[in-house]
């Protein structure tokens, strides 16, 4: 499973806008390149990224070949209740990388 990094505040006030930063280790090979002997390097990309917060989807993104390796995605959401944030990256083969983070709302 590729390495990921997720950064968000551990605690937030109700109604506060929080920033969430995510990073995943992935080659994001475009499929347009050739190796040193001229063979095409097959495409290998992440196609979908989603984030759910306490079961509700708060962010979704489709990724294509134009996205650089190790995609960094930052977005904001409103802290509504204490709960788990689940991050899912789906690659072109359907393999899912799932990470969780906890947010306490005070």
């Amino acid at each position, binding site marked *: 499973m590729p*390495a990921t*990094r997720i*950064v968000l505040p551990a605690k937030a006030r109700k109604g506060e806008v929080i920033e969430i*930063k995510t*990073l995943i*280790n992935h*080659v*994001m090979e475009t499929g347009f390149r050739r190796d040193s002997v001229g063979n095409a390097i097959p495409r290998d990309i992440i196609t979908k990224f989603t984030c759910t917060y306490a079961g509700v989807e708060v962010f979704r993104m489709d990724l294509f070949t134009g996205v*650089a*390796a*190790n995609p*960094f995605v*930052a977005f904001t959401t409103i802290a509504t209740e204490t709960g788990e944030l689940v991050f899912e990256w789906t690659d072109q083969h359907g393999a899912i990388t799932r990470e969780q983070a906890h947010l306490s709302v005070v």
Partner: protein
Amino acid sequence: MLALLLAPLSVQGQEPQRAIPASEMRSGREFVSAATRAQQDDLTVNPGMLWVEQGEKLWREPAGPAERSCASCHGEEASMRGVAARYPLYDSSLQRLLNLEGRIQRCRVEHQKGTPLAYESAELLAFTALIAQQSRGLPVKVDIDGPARPFFQRGRTLYLQRQGQLNLSCAQCHEDNWGRRLRAEQISQGMSNGFPAYRLEWQTLGSLNRRLRACFQGVRAEPFASGSDEFVALELYLAWRAQGLPIETPAVRR
């Protein structure tokens, strides 16, 4: 003739002349865009930290037939603080100059009884990133005296020697023309204090030797192999040029 033979001996222990005075020394960090600098400084978004985190895991994993991890001997990775700042370092038992990658490879063989990790492999990059990151902020402080001096001289010769089809030396760009433009890019001083670094061009973390290979290819010279004696000697010379600049690993470079 005698004077010529004695000349290298007499410079032992003397501080060689610097082409770029200490007051004008500038890290590669100052030659990249503000956005790239911000990405490097904020460790939460620095992509190089993916390798550092991987290194933290590997640090505790037993490896090789000896079933020992790095932590079995060294304890916490924080014990490595300051180590990377001293490399490349002369190893008296091997009578060779070792860079950080070389030292990790020796450790793998001698203490873990395993096979050395390949240069530029994800594992070796993870270890070097982790160890060098412990020294982040500390000044580069390599020893070029005593047994290290011949390696230093060799590195210096390589640095000043014209090579490749373009017939250029390292110094002609990075000392005579730094700060000026080469096509769209500003020429840096070629300081090595950020490596292993995440290069946007590579879209991955890479070693200093990989960067040197790219420079050699740039002047259309045949590059030396990564980890070769020539490159490690050149690495020592580069580290001495960057003496006093803070370690920035994992740096982000264009």
